Structures are given as structure tokens and as C-alpha cells.
């Protein structure tokens, strides 16, 4: 199947004025400005197939939002090429824009003082959605997200999570084929995150939509994305299955066991993560795992020994800790 999103050596450089702190430097800046080129996105390439849900990960400032903006036609790339549904996004053709949506967790587009229903009508006008189709989709989404009681209240009276749900409904009324979701669960509580996650999964299934999602909550990524693309310092660091990411980047495993004698110098085995009565959990370097477990079993009277991969949060942390020079 041909890919729906395809980017090749995509780059975006910004010219940022640069000066020292202080009044004198500020005054000098009026006369002569020094500019520094910041490579927000530095020649990244990847392809996404129809119907895929891909997690787009990276620390703050890695270039995720810049990439999403280039894919949705808001920014012109400095170099490289992008193709989304066969369109060049930067041309912002209406046929292209009708098939995508961009949701940003920290911004809202619904009218603050009005009930969501009124704002939905506006979306219908913007996207020229036929009335019966519009009503069907709207009611379907309202039901899926359990918003029936809330659609007639002004947006300003809703909680952050309820507002986000409304935003998502508004952003999907035209049933886009491609969803760019930038931190859709930002600041929401666990239940609300879960609800939104389920909805995205359901939408993906019902309409065979392609989703590119950024999130700082690994639970979102684990629940929704089989595949992840990781960028860091504007460069592509990893592209593949989530499980392979764990395999590649986790430097540690956790070893748990039960032991009765307490007076042991654990530092020779690994780093103690937790002790709960007789239950100990150690963190050990991945390559030494088998050696250490063997020693534990031989030296001490340990029981119920388990070895687990490091939690995904830890893996991501070690990925993000990679220094700029080390990226390729």
C-alpha cells in the first residue's frame, strides 16, 4: 500500500536573533543584530502507512511540533520534501486541508462563551459538511465521549478535560483521514486521558484514519501506538516498534526477589530501587543481567526471582538523555 505520509530529508531552520543579556547588548542589537541558525528539524525521513497510529516522541524542543506544523501546511520546510495524501502541505490546498486535522492540547479553537453545539455549527459551515452527515457524526462523537449533558453549556463552564473532549469533537466533525494530535492529553487526569485514548483508537478503527500523535504520557503511546518515531535535537533517533525501542535503549533491567537475610551489601549486585519487607527490587545493567541473577541464586537464599524490562518511562528517559553529538 502506498504511504499516506512521506517525508524525505525534511529540514526546518530558524534564524534567531541572539544577544547577551543587559541593556547595552539590547541597545547594540538595535543597530546590528546577530543571528544564529537553529536547526529545529534536521533532515528527517519517514513514511506512514494508511491506518497506522504512530507515536511521535522527543523531549521538549526536539522538533516535534515544528514537524507537525510542516505536515499540516503551517510552515514551509527549509529543505526536503513532504507529501501527505499526495499533496504538498505547504500549498495548503483546500482539498488537502479538508482531509486533515490538527489538535493542540494547549490551545483551543471553540468559542469560549458559547455552548459547543454552536461552535460545531461553525465547523460545519467551514468544512461544508452536509447537514444530515454532520448531525450523524456529531451525535456519534457526543455519545462516544459521553458529552450529551455538556454540549449545551458554555465552554467556559467546562472542566479542562471536558473542554478537550469538545475540542476533539470539533476537530473531527469533518471526518479527516489524517489526525495530527499534539499533546492531546496535556494536563488531564488519568481517567480523562484514558477516555480520549479510547476515543482516538475507536476513531482510527471506524474510519481507518492515520494518526500521528505526540505525548509526554507514555501510557498514551503504549495504549495507542505500535510504532514510534523518536526525534531528538531535530534528528531522527529511532523509527520502529515500541518493543524494539525498549530493547534498543534500555540499559537496565529490573530484578525482583524475596530474601530473608537483610545484611547484604547490595551495591555489588546492582542499584536498589525498592525494598518492601523481604521483597527487593534491583536495577542491573542489561548485559550483566544473567551473570547477576546467577550470582544471586548461588550466593544467597533468594526466592521468586523475576526479571523485567525497564519501565517505558525509564527507557524514554535514557533516550532523551542522549547528547546532541551522539545523535548520528
Amino acid at each position, binding site marked *: 500500500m502506498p504511504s499516506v505520509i512521506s517525508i524525505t530529508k525534511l529540514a526546518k531552520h*530558524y534564524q534567531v536573533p541572539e544577544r547577551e543579556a543587559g541593556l547595552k547588548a539590547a541597545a547594540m542589537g538595535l543597530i546590528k543584530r546577530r543571528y544564529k541558525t537553529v536547526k529545529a528539524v534536521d533532515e528527517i525521513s519517514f513514511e506512514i502507512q494508511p491506518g497506522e497510529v504512530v507515536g511521535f516522541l522527543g523531549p521538549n524542543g526536539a522538533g516535534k511540533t515544528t514537524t507537525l506544523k510542516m505536515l499540516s501546511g503551517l510552515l*514551509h520546510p527549509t529543505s526536503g520534501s513532504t507529501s501527505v495524501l499526495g499533496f504538498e502541505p505547504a500549498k495548503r490546498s483546500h482539498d488537502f486541508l479538508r482531509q*486533515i486535522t*490538527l489538535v493542540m492540547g494547549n*490551545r483551543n*479553537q471553540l468559542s469560549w462563551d458559547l455552548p459547543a453545539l*454552536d461552535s460545531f*455549527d461553525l465547523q460545519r459551515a*467551514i468544512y461544508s459538511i452536509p447537514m444530515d452527515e454532520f448531525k450523524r457524526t456529531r451525535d456519534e462523537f457526543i455519545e462516544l465521549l459521553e458529552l450529551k449533558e455538556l454540549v449545551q453549556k*458554555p465552554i467556559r463552564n467546562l472542566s479542562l478535560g471536558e473542554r478537550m473532549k469538545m475540542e476533539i469533537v470539533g476537530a473531527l466533525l469533518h471526518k479527516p483521514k489524517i489526525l495530527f494530535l499534539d499533546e492531546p492529553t496535556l494536563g488531564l487526569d488519568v481517567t480523562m486521558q484514558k477516555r480520549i485514548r479510547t476515543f482516538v483508537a475507536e476513531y482510527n478503527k471506524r474510519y481507518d484514519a492515520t494518526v500521528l500523535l505526540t505525548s509526554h504520557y507514555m501510557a498514551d503511546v503504549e495504549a495507542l501506538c505500535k510504532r514510534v518515531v523518536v526525534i531528538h535535537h531535530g534528528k531522527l533517533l529511532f523509527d520502529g516498534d515500541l518493543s524494539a525501542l525498549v530493547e534498543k535503549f534500555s540499559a537496565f533491567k529490573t530484578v525482583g526477589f524475596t530474601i530473608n537475610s537483610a545484611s547484604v551489601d547490595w551495591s555489588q549486585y546492582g542499584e536498589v530501587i525498592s525494598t518492601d519487607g523481604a521483597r527487593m527490587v534491583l536495577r542491573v545493567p542489561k548485559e550483566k543481567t544473567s551473570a547477576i541473577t546467577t550470582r544471586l541464586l548461588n550466593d544467597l537464599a533468594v526466592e521468586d526471582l523475576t526479571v523485567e524490562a525497564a519501565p517505558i518511562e525509564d527507557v524514554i528517559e535514557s533516550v532523551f538523555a542522549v547528547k546532541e553529538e551522539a545523535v548520528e
Partner: protein
Amino acid sequence: MHGLRLAFNYLRIGVLNEFQYRANFYIQILQTFIALATGLIGLNLVFSQTDQLGGWSKPELLAVMGVFITMGGVIRSAIQPNMERLMEEIREGKLDFALTKPADAQLLVSVREFRFWQTVDVITGMVVMGVALAQMNWLISGWSALGFFTAIAMGAVMIYCFWLMITTTAFWFVRVHEIANLFEGLYAAGRWPIDIYPNWLRIGLTFLVPVAFAVTVPAEALTGRLTFQTWIGAFVLTIVLFTIARTIWKIGLRSYSGASA
């Protein structure tokens, strides 16, 4: 067609929005009343000293005032709120939502806001014009009426273009908030027909800030002064200004998206 429907939908939302704030309606009525009263007092003061001002009689100047109030209402209800929102969104980087919509971006940013209560001014101005015409014994020809309606429409478009050009500069000079105050100051000059001003100011109010075309020219039509040359001039200038404004907007948008970088 799509554009018209879109504008209508935003208008509807604007009206719905304003209905949530009933207090604004009363405040607006109060403001309009005060502005009208001071205007009338000023006019009476002038005409207690003389019975002509730059060739305009008292009822004629009342007509100018009517146009001034109506046009002010149009600007504050439909033009200024949109441009101020645009300015703010450029500054805060919130324009993204408008730009991901399948609609002409300039159209979209120009119709999103509508301050319904400001239409109190539009109506009040019309009443004042009606009174002025009555004092002139309704001596207005069909051609003059046509000239008036077209002139007021062109005037509104010119003011819109002026605002859009200034607002678009926000793409480069992020802070342009003071222009609202600047504009109000200059627009206030439209209270009087521009022939009474010295030459340099008259040129400025005609071509730099098109207050002359927005207020004086429609008032000329009402008072039977409008010449065909002036009307053609207004027509040409409207097209020229619109073309320039749209070009600057497009360039600004390119710079916003980094197309030129």
C-alpha cells in the same frame, strides 16, 4: 458562495455571543448617547457663531455627523474586532487554527468577530442622517442615493484595507497594538468634512488613512455634492487599496510560515 455562508455563520455566532452579555447593550446605548450629545453640542456651538462652515450648512453638517457615527459603528462592530483578534493571534502564534481550515485565510480572519451591540451606532447614525435629510426637505435624487450607498460601501472596504495592511505588519513587528488608538484619533477628524482642514492634513486623511472616503464622500452624496469624478476616484482607490492589502497579507503569511526563510 462558501465565503458568504461562512461570514453569515460567524455573524450568527457573534450575535449569540453578544446576547450573553446584556450589560454591554446598555453600556453601548449610554456611550452612543454621550457621543451623540457631545457631537450635537459641538455642532450648535459652531453654528451659534456662523451659519456656514467651509461651505457646509448646519443640516449638511448634521448629515456628515450621521455618516461619521454610522461608519464608526461599522468599523467597531465588524472591522476593528477582527483585526485586533488577528493581531493577537499573530503575536501568540494562535493563527494556526485559521490556517488549517479549507477556506480563504484572509476571508476567514476578516469575518470571525462581530460586535453586535455596536450596531446601535450604525442605527443612531442613520437616524441622524434621516433628521438631516428632513431638515433639507428630502432634496435627494435617485443618483445621489445610489452614490451614497455605493460610497459608504467603498468607504468601509477602504477602511478595512487600511486596517488589514497595518495589522499584517504584525507578522514582522510583533507589537502593533497602539494602532487602534492611533486610528481612533485620526478617525475622529472625520467628524467634520475634510474641506475645512489645511491641505497637508486633507491629503493625509484622503490617501494615508482613507477617512475622507469613508465619511466625507458619502456625506457629499447625501448633500448632492458628489461629483462623478470623485466617485470614480473612490472606485479606483478601493480596488487599488484592496489589491495592495491582499498582496501584503499574502507576503505576511509567507513570512509567518517561513516560506521566504
